[in-house]
């Protein structure tokens, strides 16, 4: 697996003052890492769904196979949520999230920079609020011993994973707000999958 990972690319935060640079680089590294975690979750959910299909098929011929893995759909949905949230931070860094750029493209540079700072900061504030609320949400599931209806799985665990994914997105918005304020590059297209041809 490690050999698949490309060598960490040169930092785009070189122009930042030292302490900030360390923070920004760390968030970038996290962003790359959680993109891979999101990918792992995506593959895992594919395998889980395939296992469910295979089990149901095989149980027709081999009676010792259970007709269904009752956790398949439920756990697939947790993996999907994890994949979505973990991937979100990397997606932001590579410029993969969609926005209306009409105004941004047609205003003078200082206004554009102000808008970039504002939108990244708004993203940071909203995600920080959502993440802190998610912490309370998952903590509530934990203290109340909440179980899923489908399989009696403690819900706090998948909820904590998703919360962590949201925290990473929050950090990425913070990094972007700082980068916009310092005039550093906002998006790192080298992380993106290479285009074909």
């Amino acid at each position: 697996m490690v050999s698949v990972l490309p060598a960490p690319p040169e930092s785009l935060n070189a122009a930042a003052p030292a302490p900030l640079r360390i923070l920004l680089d760390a968030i970038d590294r996290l962003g790359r890492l959680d993109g891979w975690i999101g990918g792992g979750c995506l593959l895992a959910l594919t395998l889980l769904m395939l296992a469910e299909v295979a089990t149901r098929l095989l149980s027709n011929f081999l009676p010792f196979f259970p007709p269904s893995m009752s956790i398949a759909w439920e756990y697939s949905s947790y993996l999907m949520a994890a994949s979505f949230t973990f991937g979100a931070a990397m997606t932001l860094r590579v410029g993969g999230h969609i926005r209306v750029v009409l105004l941004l493209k047609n205003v003078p540079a200082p206004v554009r920079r102000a808008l970039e700072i504002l939108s990244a900061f708004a993203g940071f504030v909203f995600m920080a609020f959502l993440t802190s609320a998610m912490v309370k949400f998952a903590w509530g599931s934990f203290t109340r011993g909440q179980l899923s209806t489908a399989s009696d799985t403690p819900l706090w665990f998948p909820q904590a994973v998703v919360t962590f994914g949201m925290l990473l997105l929050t950090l990425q918005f913070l990094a972007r707000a700082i980068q916009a304020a310092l005039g550093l590059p906002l998006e790192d297209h080298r992380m993106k999958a290479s285009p074909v041809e």
Partner: protein
Amino acid sequence: ATASWDLSTVWPDGNFHTHNAKAFADAVKKQTDGGVNITVKAGGQLGFKGPEHLRAVRDGLVPLADVLNIQQVGDEPFMGVESIPFLAVSMDELKILHKYVRPEYDKVAERNNQKILYIVPWPTQYLHLKVKVAGVEGLKNIKIRVPDKNAVDMLNAVGMAPVMIPWGETIPALASGAVAGVSTSAVSGVDGKFWEFMKYIYPTNHVWSSQMVTVNLDSWKALSADQQKLVAGIAAKMEPDFWANSLKADVDSLNRLKEGGMEVVPVTDAMMTDIRARTAPLLEAFLKRVPAADKPVRAYLAEIKR
């Protein structure tokens, strides 16, 4: 005081539970002279799923909800008591069971910052199958769609092959043969137009479940004492009618399934005895898992002499 309350339910507009809720809302609005205004928001449009309704009302996310008791077992295991196989085999027995469990339901509700206004059961449960079977052996390994873990345990005990998939996937799965049966009420059978896929209905009557319309206690306390009395009185007065609606929905739905071409296959005594014998251990297992259920369930069993 005047109150504008949303009532969240996952059931669609045409469902009899939603009809009941709307009738209740109308009566409340009329008799409080518009002081308490309930809007039924059906089909899950407020964004809450079934198993979250107890929590949603508790946290004040919505003042009222139609809560399906057996879906709340992840928060409150006691709420699964009606789903013990064959604990009650008719609506009359269920009424007696409710006499003993209702006080516990009320405690659960209070613990969750809410008050139960009224409770209405789902009609009796059936096995809807593609094939005709004579005995319990015929059920062996038939792939049947079930909604939750409790049903998985029960039908596993019977020897069937329960498959837990979302309702939306069930219809295509029935059409293609990925599953060959569904365990649910006749009402849901009509919702799914089961006659398009299956031929036989087995009145096994294996489990029950009930919808509870509950109100958040903070919202409740905002009403005047008179209003509280009025609303609670309306709920109590209408509840028997709502139970009658449930019975009627069962009869109507069964007729529609038959019109569609399905056949009700009487379950022989031998087959019923087999099924009940196989699922019997689930009663003790439940009482062991949920000690609070022990006393009311045993008192109920004593009253019906079982």
